[in-house]
């Protein structure tokens, strides 16, 4: 309880006891506003007649989802359209940013006339430029672009637009936006100066390469971004000749949304109300409200905290709660996520004392609790969550031929983070040579000359504006929504849809940067997409365990072509728990209560023994599928199988084989489970070890 809490509660107490309550000042302010308007503005600009929209069509929202009701009439703006019709989304730029408008027709007319004027000016300038081929061509086009898209590009006001055609390119890439292309984009909220986005001019990145704005940094609207996601998956489906069987109904969509965004389950009444609501935009509106709600902030903060630091038995629960609250506040207030991460990384670790219930620095929780003798835990989380790389293995050896995943890169990262007890870091090469790590940023720039105590902050500064940070965050968000990342960070995984997914990842990451690292908005894009509204196929864990290798491939292929949705059970379990549950199914054979939900359609294949919701083709397997079979699921074929084969050729004992397959020393219970599995597979060690390995790999990748 600090001084401010005392003062706040004292003032509340005063209000209760003295009966001194706030009065309605709206009339008084309105009068003053009108008076000042008359003094400062031309009489030709009318003061709008504010409609008193008491209920609007929002009543359903307050009953449909368990979030604090939003009574503000200011939020009763036109609901956004949803992914089912992407063009309608695309036509509404920045639909998530609520701007209070009371005279839509006036506003529309105003914008249309502005657009018309700008359009005419743009045409004239373009004609003049083309005809005369003046050297000032670029300047004039820049001016047009800036006038037409005053806030479209995220550049500082004194920085010229480097690609004048960027808005045109964006419009071209989004055919749905054709009709609205000439219209100026609605301005985005300028949150510089807001209390949650304090920005200092002195803090500009020193590396000119990092401060340079990419030439294609054009802010797309929410609808356009969602259309990008939909388009990317639609291309994949077309490429592999698969189509979803349809779209989920309102009930399933509401349940899915409530579960993923708010960690709740709607009641039957709420579902009925939602279904009865005849509003074509109700899904978009609900998503918008949900991602702006306190409950969403709390739920996502909790999940992110879990990713950042797993609970320990001896940890301070108050401190963790404070940390969660701090993150909740930041998400609720839409603090740029890179700022949040910067604060986390540049915080000073505190050693908690016995009675240290709170340190007053919630952001220090993460570093303080992950701080080990050399900072390995922090480095691994930084790499997986924010650098979009999986560097765990690089601690001991190089991964592939990439310098980014080399052993030296890992130790350079460790030295840059500088969380160890010693100022110098040494690592052992394969040949036994001891080598000193050089503190280096992932872009190759050495920061070894920076004093040891300032390296982590230098790293945090670089990270906050690096593209890999945005990509890592998009991947994390995708994982929180769908259960698996958009693009696997495992270097061994090279499945055929990766290129398309990688492209989408880069697009989303770029927009995430342009939209000021707004996490809530990123979630809105992902959940507003068509993959999120694709029907699920339930695959029980028993199905998974009993599936043949080819069936497993089919399942994995389907997951790759569609989005994954496997949040249940495994999210909160470690790999050991998941294994025990899977093996238990072998024994029980019935009561499949735990289900693994895959937001995926089955592939058009004949190998699945279970009934298929789509019609099976009698034709022979098409070439693409043969090809896919050869190259798909390399993490089971190329990597895992090779590993198992190598293990079987060795002279390892059965417990040692199990240990290598699991990736950790098995407990007696796990060994017993492995024995049961071996028995189930008729003594086939290869099949048993493969299944053990897949199972733990799957669980650990959740």
């Amino acid at each position, binding site marked *: 309880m600090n001084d401010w809490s005392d003062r706040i509660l004292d003032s509340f107490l005063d209000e209760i006891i003295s009966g001194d309550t706030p009065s309605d000042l709206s009339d008084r302010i309105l009068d003053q506003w009108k008076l000042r308007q008359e003094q400062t503005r031309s009489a030709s600009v009318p003061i709008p007649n504010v409609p008193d929209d008491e209920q609007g069509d929002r009543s359903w929202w307050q009953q449909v989802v368990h979030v604090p009701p939003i009574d503000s009439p200011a939020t009763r703006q036109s609901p956004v359209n949803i992914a089912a019709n992407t063009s309608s989304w695309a036509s509404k730029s920045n639909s998530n940013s609520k701007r209070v408008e009371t005279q839509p027709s006036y506003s529309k007319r105003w914008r249309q006339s502005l657009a018309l004027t700008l359009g005419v000016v743009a045409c004239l300038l373009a004609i003049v430029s083309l005809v005369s081929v003046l050297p000032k061509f670029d300047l004039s086009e820049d001016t047009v672009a800036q006038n037409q898209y005053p*806030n479209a590009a995220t550049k500082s006001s004194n920085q010229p637009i480097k690609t004048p055609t960027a808005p045109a390119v964006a419009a071209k890439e989004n055919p749905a936006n054709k009709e609205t292309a000439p219209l100026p984009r609605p301005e985005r909220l300028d949150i510089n100066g807001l209390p949650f986005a304090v920005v200092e001019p002195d803090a500009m990145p020193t590396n000119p390469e990092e401060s340079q704005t990419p030439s294609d940094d054009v802010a797309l609207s929410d609808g356009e971004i969602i259309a990008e996601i939909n388009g990317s998956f639609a291309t994949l489906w077309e490429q592999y000749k698969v189509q979803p069987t349809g779209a989920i109904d309102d009930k399933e969509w509401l349940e899915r949304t409530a579960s993923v965004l708010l960690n709740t389950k709607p009641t039957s009444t709420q579902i009925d109300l939602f279904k009865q609501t005849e509003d074509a935009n109700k899904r978009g509106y609900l998503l918008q409200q949900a991602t702006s709600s306190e409950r969403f902030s709390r739920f996502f903060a909790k999940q992110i905290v879990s990713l950042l630091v797993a609970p320990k038995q001896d940890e301070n629960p108050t401190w963790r709660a404070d940390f969660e609250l701090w993150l909740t506040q930041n998400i609720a207030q839409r603090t740029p996520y890179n700022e949040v991460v910067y604060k986390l990384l540049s915080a000073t670790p505190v050693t908690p004392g016995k009675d240290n219930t709170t340190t007053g620095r919630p952001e220090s929780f993460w570093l303080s609790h992950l701080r080990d003798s050399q900072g390995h835990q922090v480095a691994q989380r930084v790499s997986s969550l924010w650098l979009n790389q999986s560097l765990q293995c690089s601690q001991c050896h190089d991964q592939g031929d990439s310098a980014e995943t080399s052993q030296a890169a890992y130790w350079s990262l460790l030295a840059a983070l500088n969380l160890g007890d010693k100022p110098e870091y040494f690592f052992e090469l394969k040949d036994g040579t001891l080598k000193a790590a050089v503190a280096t940023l992932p872009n190759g720039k050495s920061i070894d000359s920076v004093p040891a105590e300032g390296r982590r902050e230098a790293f945090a500064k670089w990270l906050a504006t690096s593209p890999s940070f945005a990509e890592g965050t998009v991947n994390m968000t995708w994982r929180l929504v769908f259960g698996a990342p958009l693009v696997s960070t495992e270097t061994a995984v090279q499945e055929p849809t990766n290129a398309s997914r990688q492209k989408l990842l880069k697009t989303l990451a770029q927009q995430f940067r342009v939209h000021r690292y707004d996490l809530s908005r990123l979630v809105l894009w992902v959940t507003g997409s068509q993959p999120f509204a694709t029907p699920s196929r339930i695959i029980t864990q028993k199905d998974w365990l009993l599936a043949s290798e080819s069936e497993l491939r089919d399942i994995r292929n389907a997951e790759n072509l569609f989005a994954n949705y496997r949040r249940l059970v495994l999210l909160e379990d470690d790999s050991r728990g998941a294994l025990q549950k899977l093996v238990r199914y072998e024994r029980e054979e019935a009561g499949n209560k735990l289900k693994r939900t895959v937001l995926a359609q089955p592939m058009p294949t004949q190998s699945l023994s279970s009934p298929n919701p789509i019609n099976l083709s009698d034709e022979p397997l098409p070439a693409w599928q043969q090809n896919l079979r050869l190259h798909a699921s390399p993490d089971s074929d190329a990597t895992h199988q090779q590993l198992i084969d190598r293990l079987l050729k060795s002279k390892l004992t059965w417990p040692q084989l199990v240990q290598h397959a699991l990736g950790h020393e098995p407990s007696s219970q796990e060994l017993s489970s492995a024995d049961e599995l071996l028995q189930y597979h008729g003594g086939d060690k290869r099949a048993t070890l493969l299944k053990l390995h897949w199972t733990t790999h799957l669980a650990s990748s959740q």
Partner: protein
Amino acid sequence: MSDFPPTQVAGSSMEDPGDNQPQGGSGPLNSSLPPSSEINIVALVRQHQVGLWRYLRALGCDSTSAEDLIQETFLRILHRPFEQRNDAATGAYLRRVAHNLFISQRRRSNKISLTEKASELEESWTRWAGFDNGDSTIEALRECMGRLTERAQLALRKRFAEEHSRTEIGDELGISEHGAKNLMQRAKAQLRECLESKLK
């Protein structure tokens, strides 16, 4: 965090939202934003005035000056319209403006005010009243008041409603000034405990 690298945005503005702003529709207002008249003034005021009033009272304003500052806050906002992302963000922005106006007012009148821990204030405010203008906290506090002893309630009433000094309260309750202070401190501690359990 003062040394955080800035995110890149169009039309970057470093102005303090509450003070040193150009008056009368200059700056970004006319260049990129719609006319201020489009903002639903009444709705915005009704949504946030209670929270602002309580916030300013917590800062140390009396009722009248709190109302004056609220009026000035909204007029500043109307001069420089903004997009509403959500209620929490809007509330935080309004509080920032009000806080800056409050500091300016204090500076003008040469009064010292607590400004060095403004970030803690925002954190505390969000904790106690961040999401509903403090309504639920007030309601819970009202219920907790009823659980106090008659003497404790009386002492608090004398202190807050009638603005009696500790000595006067002690005299009326037949205890020393120190005893009155202890009684009220214990009562407030009980209220906090009750409040925290209710708002958990």
